């Protein structure tokens, strides 16, 4: 586990908002030299605190008007291979994230589609036909906020 001080936290907050800021611009705001800022960012990357980058795209402007979260329960637990299910579901392009969860469902999927008829096509042809897929619950995303978290 990597330990953070106040400056590291401020750096992470700033980079989570905008990863394209230069080390010198970030350093000026935090009262650090450019090399010191660069060393801190390197340490955060190497220590695993920064897992990568995410490009923020406007899904709606690109024609993807519907995002649906699916809770899936496997029908024949024990008999179906989790690996087979995971491989098959991960290969569907419209499925953006797959999480294995404990609770009411076994898996939680984030699915993007052009519109509701397109979503229905993905659900019927690709999700319901997955090996082991049982009960499915769908919730259509209306709004989404990502918060900075405990930094």
């Amino acid at each position, binding site marked *: *586990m*990597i330990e*953070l001080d106040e400056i590291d936290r401020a750096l*992470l907050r700033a*980079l*989570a*908002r*905008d*990863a*394209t800021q230069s080390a010198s611009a970030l350093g000026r705001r935090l009262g650090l030299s450019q090399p010191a800022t660069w060393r801190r960012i390197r340490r955060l990357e190497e*220590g*695993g*605190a*920064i*897992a*990568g*980058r*995410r*490009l*923020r*795209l*406007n*899904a709606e*402007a*690109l024609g*993807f008007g519907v995002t649906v*979260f699916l809770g899936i329960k496997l029908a024949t637990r024990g008999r179906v291979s989790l690996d087979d299910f*995971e491989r098959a*579901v*991960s290969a569907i*392009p*419209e*499925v*953006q*994230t*797959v*999480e*294995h*969860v*404990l*609770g*009411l*469902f076994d*898996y*939680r999927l984030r699915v*993007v589609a052009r519109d509701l008829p397109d979503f229905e096509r993905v659900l019927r042809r690709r999700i319901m036909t997955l090996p082991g897929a049982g009960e499915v*619950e*769908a*919730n*259509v*995303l*209306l*709004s*989404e*906020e*990502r*918060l900075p*978290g*405990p*930094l």
Partner: protein
Amino acid sequence: MLDDLDRRILRYWQAEPSLSPGELAERCNITAGKAARRIARLQDQGIVQGSGVVIDWAALGYALEVSLRVTLDKTQANAFDIFMAEARQVPEVIELQTFLGRVDLRLSIIARDMAHYQQIYRSRILTLPHIAEIEALMHVARIKTQEGLPL
């Protein structure tokens, strides 16, 4: 409207968000000038909204992630607004989504361990206003995480 080249740029870019405009030009077999013009246009049109680093909370000592699916007491006129305003004040809440479906909202919360989760759940979550019902899903593993759009 987007053409094939825009889509090609976006495909490479979302797969590797840290690529420079020059590197993107190389992948797409176009000149740096052309790539820069296309990128500027995608940003001006609000299709590319920016990029941010992804924080690995587990590396920072937050080993648990729990999805709380919340149903609200909708007899209260602005239950959504009041609930969301208060949920945003809880530092361990990292995502806040609203839905059309069986559940109204979902909170993603992170915690250092079970004892920490229990403490957040009792003192910060159960005290949120207008909750009718809560269900918890504990995250076991992330199988697919690149939230790319199928462009």
